[in-house]
């Protein structure tokens, strides 16, 4: 349990917490009948746990952790494809460090590296470009992973490679988009959602109108939020006020960073380099229409799928034994209800992807709740 005193501005935090409590009471939110607010972004999930916001807010508010952690929703079969490419003769495979420990069906990239594949962790696709310049006799592949925050960086890097005429650089594109899975969750009749806290840095790229459909077609409030605890509390308050007033709007709490129409250079680069795949597989959520990007024919020379003959095939929902990732992902159960939580599955030895990244719900529960978060009696484990 964290204390408000730790916040940068405890007075403001206390005022927000009381305001939240007042509005929550006014709309009749209780522990038994809570208001369900989904924070879409994994960064927000992490912040909520780090600052204990889920415990500090009125008990009638329940956070549902959204699909906004790209490492967590990466299908195992795509990790397998990475390993296949990385193990090819002459390849230098580059990736963000976050992806190294994601389990594939055969092995993770970390294991493939230990087995001798030349896999390097980079900070930026710019590092991969530089590796391609310095190693003209090698094939340098960058693992393009992430939402709209990282998509522009790979698009701009591919444009740069094209300008320089680099022939040994390609991207294995697994970029995904934020709005489409939200739509899928809203279409799920089992999903109870009353409002959303929208991602801050994704919105900096795509702007706020990408979420208009949430308010217009589904009648739900969404507030784009910053990452400080105060930002999150204020956004929760704004969502509650919309519910109280019977409004459903897209509001921007993070206007100091998020422009209404996003970042024009980034959007232009994305449109130039990528097109939507008809559908793309998400771990735990299945295939979602138009939710993934692939490289356009104009830039085919930089497409690792083309270069290495790797197609996109829908993967069956191949989750490890006893893993409840998909139920956690869709908010049906809390991580602690997974029989593997803290037993077979811990951050050092993740079984499911939600335990890999600090932005995954399971890792956040474990890090900030730890063993205390373990249910005392777990029938499924007790039965083993």
């Amino acid at each position, binding site marked *: 349990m964290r204390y408000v005193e730790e916040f*940068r501005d405890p007075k403001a935090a206390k005022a927000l917490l009381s305001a939240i409590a007042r509005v929550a009471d006014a709309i009749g939110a209780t522990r038994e009948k809570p208001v369900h607010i989904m924070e879409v*972004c*994994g*960064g927000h999930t*992490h*912040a909520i746990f*780090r*600052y204990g916001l889920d415990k500090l807010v009125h008990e009638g508010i329940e956070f549902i952790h959204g699909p*906004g*952690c*790209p490492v967590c929703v990466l299908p195992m079969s795509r990790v397998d494809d990475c390993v296949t490419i990385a193990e090819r003769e002459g390849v230098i495979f*580059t990736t*963000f*460090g*976050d992806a190294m420990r994601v389990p594939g069906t055969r092995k993770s990239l970390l294991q493939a590296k230990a087995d001798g594949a030349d896999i*390097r*962790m*980079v*900070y*930026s*696709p*710019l*590092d991969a470009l*530089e*590796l391609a310049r*310095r190693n003209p006799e090698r094939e340098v592949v960058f693992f393009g*992973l*992430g*939402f709209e*925050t*990282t998509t*522009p*960086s790979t698009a*701009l890097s591919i444009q*740069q490679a094209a300008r320089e005429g680099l022939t040994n650089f390609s991207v294995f594109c697994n970029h995904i988009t934020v709005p489409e899975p939200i739509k899928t969750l809203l279409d799920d009749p089992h999903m109870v959602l009353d409002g959303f806290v929208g991602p801050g*840095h*994704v919105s*900096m*790229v795509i702007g706020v109108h990408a979420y208009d459909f949430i308010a217009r077609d589904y009648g739900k409030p969404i507030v784009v939020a*910053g*990452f*400080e*605890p105060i930002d999150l509390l204020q956004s929760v308050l704004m969502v509650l006020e919309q519910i109280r007033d019977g409004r459903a709007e897209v509001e921007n709490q993070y206007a*100091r*960073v998020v*422009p209404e129409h996003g*970042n*024009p*250079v*980034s959007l232009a*680069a994305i449109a130039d380099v990528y097109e939507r795949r008809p559908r793309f597989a998400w771990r735990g959520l299945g295939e979602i229409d138009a939710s993934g990007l692939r490289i356009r024919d104009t830039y085919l020379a930089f497409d690792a799928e083309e270069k290495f003959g790797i197609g996109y095939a829908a993967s069956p929902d191949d989750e490890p034994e006893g893993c409840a990732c998909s139920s956690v992902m869709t908010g049906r159960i809390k991580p602690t209800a997974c029989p593997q939580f803290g037993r077979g599955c811990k951050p050092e030895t993740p079984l499911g992807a939600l335990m890999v990244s*600090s*932005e995954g719900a399971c890792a956040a529960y474990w890090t900030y709740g730890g063993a205390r978060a373990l249910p005392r009696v777990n029938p499924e484990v007790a039965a083993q």
Partner: protein
Amino acid sequence: MCLGIPGQIVAITDAARQMAMADVSGVRREVSLAPVADRPLDALVGKWVLIHVGFAMAVIDAQEAADTLEALRGLGEAQETLDAMAEGAKALEEQ
């Protein structure tokens, strides 16, 4: 990788490629200014930007930069990003 980190632009290193040197919590890192190059590059020297995987995605003011850094430090994400930058530099040197 999903959260940006504030850095201050200290010099333009390659105007043709829109590259600049940024100071990120005391660490020097070359970044691309392409997403914020809707103004003369020289005008960005001294400014704070939010950097995502090596690309300056937004110009922010000094106070916002300080507050964001504090929030990222609180989450441990600032250190994670600096470690990733060090890994990136190491990756270039490996044979």
